[in-house]
């Protein structure tokens, strides 16, 4: 809502308050003022000129040479390119030395050889938005009324000395979508009086009921009133009216239409003027449209209506889309002489649906949507009729025809002083509260310390005591409310075990050098299902904004690969990322999907890079496995973890393993398949993805100290040659089961494939550590056990390597 400071003066005296102070106070008490615009501040030396003559420029086919009287001794010569410039016009002239919109300075100059001592201006050149400039002047200079005094300053003439406050009106404060509403708000803040406009309609002999009848068939139109004004002369509005509309962001059209908009801005009550002679009948019927019924709206578009659209009809066909836009056929035109003036109350929800469906938003619809004050329906109509009589020479027929079935229940709200103070944490006195209620101009009764407040219909947002608390708090000043902390029952703040362990997961991965990433939950249909261990039911958006974000992800890796690619394109070659985020498994239509938190990572490039000492370690399968092993150890899960070679879509078949926890698959790790890497424009990326819930929801045991062994152990190495397909894990299992109690630790210390062993064979060497916590072992004891181990390996096909 754009509020002209000068216009506001009509309803409340703000002459002692600067526009800036007004803006600040309004903001602090509830309605954010986003901007205070002062057009005139950026302009100077702009006056009214009279075009005495206008001739063709000899060196141009579109420029004119004008002699312009600007109130000085001699007329000045100005070259003008506007198509509508003509002799006899009163125009806006920027003199030499003037500054116009866009901070442009006007200098003496020559245009194609002819002297030009100024500039004839369009409104846009003074900083007006092209959308509010009257259509006839939209592509040329603005022509002032004939009786305008030559040489005078245009500032007050065009209200350039005004300040316009841009109010950002929240859904609850629709009462401030009118000048009178803003005036009440201003009055409440500053403790001032509100002056309401008068509507003195001259009495006519003829009765409106002889001209028109009204009827509503729909509950969505509880009030419909009509007035008729005869002998109207359509023409431009006076400049003061045009100025006010333009300041409010509305384009002037003609006097009748401008008056309906003026009163809409003044009262917040939308009005519509029909050409009575083109209305098509003597009956207004408001009803729901028939499915598929057609009408052409004012903007020239043919609309196909739906059953839920509310329409104004002439008893036969629609003449207006109720509360949204009028019809083209019955529009007020230059030759209109009799005006049918509509002022009505439509249901906001119905208007909102129609407005959204047809993609049509208007000043009227935006007000109906948020609600209007039903008591202003008739007031506004009277005011507009009076103005039409005054400014368009019309004769207002006696009376108003109306359909009125709205029952307005009076709203009273009861508030008690101690409850107010308990709620706000204040210690307001009865007097302070009473002063605030008075400033709001609400009537009330006071019994002891209880106020019973009658809420006026203009503040339909206030219905319960909490609404009144807000009124009191905001006018008292939020900044004046004390700052305290809750005092009640103490509570223990804490993280859940899951949340604590999730922090540990981050700690471990970051300690291992990975950066935490965040990617989008929405992905493309193409990426959905990639790297999934099992197929999931998709969760798709009904109306996606793009193909990239059309469906909820079921795995995290695809977006991490995108992040790797993004870095690769920017020459960040060594990247290690992890993400903790949800994936989503559909559970059927209208059922909330299962949301599972995953931990995923992607690494590429060098893991260790210490060049001058020649240390470079490239990320490989074992880098990732090592990180996960560290993580599992930290989470007390190492005992239950197993790896199984796996073939997973999009993964390298020889370098991928499933991770099992207590025999349940919880995720996987490995190298991305080269074909998939190509799709993502990445190379040599190792990834992992784990179901975090399955890892973290296992209860962790508390730690108990284990005695440090007092007796040194004995180590034995064993080197064997086996088939290449035999995994170290299998061999280790054999060793462990043969080694019994005394065997405490087994570690691979060498793996060899090459010339020194047969083809398809490999050599694997283990170090075995034997010990007993209670005594020192003898060589004989150890030898006995170790022989069993060797035997078991040989039985499994291993050859002892000497």
């Amino acid at each position, binding site marked *: 809502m754009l509020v002209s400071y000068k216009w506001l003066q009509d309803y409340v005296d703000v002459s002692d308050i600067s526009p800036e102070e007004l803006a600040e106070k309004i903001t*602090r008490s*509830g309605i*954010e003022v986003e901007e205070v615009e002062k057009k005139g501040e950026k302009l100077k030396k702009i006056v009214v000129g009279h075009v005495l003559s206008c001739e063709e420029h000899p060196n141009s086919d579109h420029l004119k040479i004008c002699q312009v009287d600007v109130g000085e001794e001699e007329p000045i010569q100005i070259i003008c390119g506007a198509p509508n410039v003509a002799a006899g016009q009163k125009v806006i002239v920027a003199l030499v030395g003037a500054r116009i919109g866009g901070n442009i300075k006007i200098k003496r100059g020559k245009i194609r050889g002819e002297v030009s001592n100024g500039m004839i201006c369009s409104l846009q050149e003074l900083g007006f938005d092209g959308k509010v400039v009257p259509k006839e002047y939209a592509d040329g200079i603005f022509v002032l009324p004939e009786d305008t005094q030559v040489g005078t300053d245009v500032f007050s003439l065009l209200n350039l000395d005004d300040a316009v406050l841009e109010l950002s009106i*929240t*859904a*609850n*404060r629709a009462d401030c979508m009118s000048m009178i509403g803003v005036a009440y708000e201003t009055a409440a803040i500053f403790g001032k009086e509100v002056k309401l406009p008068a509507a003195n309609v001259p009495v006519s002999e003829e009765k409106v009921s002889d001209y028109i009848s009204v009827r509503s068939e729909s509950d969505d139109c509880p009030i419909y009133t009509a007035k008729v004004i005869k002998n109207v002369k359509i023409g431009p509005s006076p400049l003061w009216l045009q100025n006010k509309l333009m300041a409010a962001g509305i384009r002037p059209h003609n006097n009748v239409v401008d008056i309906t908009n003026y009163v809409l801005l003044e009262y917040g009550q939308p009005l519509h003027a029909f050409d009575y002679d083109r209305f098509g009948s003597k009956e207004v019927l408001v009803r729901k449209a028939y499915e598929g019924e057609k009408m052409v709206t004012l903007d020239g578009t043919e609309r196909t209506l739906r059953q839920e659209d509310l329409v104004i009809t002439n008893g036969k066909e629609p003449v207006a889309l109720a509360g949204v836009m009028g019809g083209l056929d019955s529009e007020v035109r230059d030759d209109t002489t009799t005006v049918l003036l509509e002022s009505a109350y439509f249901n*906001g929800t119905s208007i*909102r649906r129609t407005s959204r469906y047809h993609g049509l938003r208007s000043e009227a619809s935006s007000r109906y949507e*948020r609600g209007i004050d039903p008591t202003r329906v008739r007031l506004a109509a009277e005011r507009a009729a009076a103005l039409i009589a005054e400014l368009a020479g019309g004769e207002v027929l006696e009376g108003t025809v109306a359909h009125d079935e709205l029952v307005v229940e009076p709203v009273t709200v009861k508030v008690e002083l101690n409850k107010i103070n*308990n*709620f*706000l*944490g204040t210690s307001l006195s009865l007097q302070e509260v009473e002063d605030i209620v008075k400033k709001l101009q609400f009537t009330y009764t006071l019994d002891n310390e209880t106020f019973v407040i009658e809420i006026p219909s203009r503040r339909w947002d206030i219905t*319960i005591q909490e*609404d009144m*608390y*807000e009124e009191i*708090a*905001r006018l008292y000043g*939020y*900044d004046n409310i*004390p*700052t*305290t*902390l*809750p*005092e*009640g029952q*103490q*509570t223990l*703040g804490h*993280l859940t075990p899951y*949340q604590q362990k999730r922090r540990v997961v*981050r700690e471990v991965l970051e*300690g291992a*050098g*990975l*950066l*935490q*990433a965040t*990617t*989008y*939950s*929405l992905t493309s249909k193409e990426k959905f299902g990639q790297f999934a261990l099992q197929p999931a039911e998709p*969760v798709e*958006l*009904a109306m*996606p904004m793009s193909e990239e974000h059309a469906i*909820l992800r079921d795995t995290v890796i695809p977006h991490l690969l995108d*992040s790797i690619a*993004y870095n690769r394109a*920017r020459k960040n070659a060594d*990247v290690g990322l992890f993400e903790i985020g*949800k994936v989503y498994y559909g559970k059927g239509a209208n059922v*909330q*999907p299962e949301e599972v938190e995953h931990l995923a990572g992607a690494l590429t490039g060098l*893991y260790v890079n*210490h060049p*001058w000492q020649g240390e470079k370690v490239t990320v490989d399968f074992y880098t990732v496995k090592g990180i996960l092993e560290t993580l599992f150890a930290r989470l007390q899960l190492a005992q239950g973890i197993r790896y199984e070679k796996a073939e997973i879509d999009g993964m390298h078949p020889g370098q991928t393993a499933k991770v099992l926890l207590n025999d349940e698959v919880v995720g996987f790790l490995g190298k991305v398949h080269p074909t998939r890497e190509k799709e993502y424009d990445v190379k040599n990326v190792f990834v992992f993805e784990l179901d975090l819930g399955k890892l973290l929801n296992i209860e962790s045991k508390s730690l108990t100290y284990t005695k440090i062994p007092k007796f040194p152990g004995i180590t034995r190495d064993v080197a064997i040659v086996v088939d290449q397909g035999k995994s170290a894990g299998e061999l280790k299992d054999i060793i462990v089961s043969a080694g019994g109690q005394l065997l405490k630790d087994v570690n691979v210390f060498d793996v060899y494939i090459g010339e020194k062993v047969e083809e398809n064979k490999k050599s694997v060497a283990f170090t075995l550590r034997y010990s007993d916590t209670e005594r020192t072992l003898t060589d004989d004891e150890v030898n006995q056990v170790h022989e069993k181990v060797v035997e078991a390996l040989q039985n499994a096909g291993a050859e002892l390597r000497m």
Partner: protein
Amino acid sequence: MKERLEELKLEALAKIESSQDLKQLNEVRVAYLGKKGPITEVLRGMGKLAPEERPVIGALANDVRAAIQEQIEAKQKVLEEQVIAEKLQKESIDITLPGRPVVQGNHHPLTKVIEEAENLFIGLGYTIAEGPEVETDYYNFEALNLPKDHPARDMQDSFYISEELLLRTHTSPMQARTMEKHEGKGPVKIIVPGKVYRRDDDDATHSHQFMQIEGLVVDEGIRMSDLKGTLALFAKKMFGEDRDIRYRPSFFPFTEPSVEIDISCKICNGDGCNVCKGTGWIEILGGGMVHPNVLRMSGFDPEKYTGFAFGIGVERIAMLRYGIDDIRHFYTNDVRFLKQFAPYES
């Protein structure tokens, strides 16, 4: 013989003194103190002496031997130190060369902000609640006093999945979910960090996905001043003790009264600049007293209980705090961006 011994002593001491290294010194030791050395030889010839002279010469010989021994040890210490010094000299390195890197990752900046908030509120007795991102229309809107066709639904244009399901547009649905769990009994004290989604085209200041932290306190006797105090604590924790805070009335359907909080602009210190659009103030969060309809719908008696709620945009906080100019940085994961948030900050 006496003279001979004195002579030997002087001779040995001179050789000790002139020894250049441990090897030479050892040769001296062997030469003078060894079993075949000259002192032993002198002693062997003692038989020729008169019996009363023998102890005198014997004592003298021992003195000489001890003196040489002492001198050798002293010299040995000097030479050993010299050897160590030379060795250390040779081992000297260029200490300006870079050390072996210990690569560490770090939190995403959004996590950094969230964890900081979590820690603050845990200290104030809150717990951390988490909830579904795919929400029902009921919890996302209706339970928050936003019935169907409420004009304020436009503020949060949303991604629907079906008629009844959508991606939550705020973390506020957890207000109702948490209150329902408490079955009408306070106190409730939670914060809810999480992802939310709105139909916005991604650009420098908009993102279809972003993060919020919701806060909710419901108990007997909760006052609006408690909301102010809590949010002031948060604002100062996030932006520093020296920031001024202002409270503006605002509107959210699920709170009444509602408030928006601005902090004084750090860049211009309140004088007005581009970042604060000339106002000197920057909006950081919104909140209010829980609307009685919301309390009632979630099973709390508004005559007995009051509460406050607030919502914080995590990206906004991080952008203001670190001077980040493009919200998309949070989601592209450029390592040169992410690594900037490694250092500890107070």
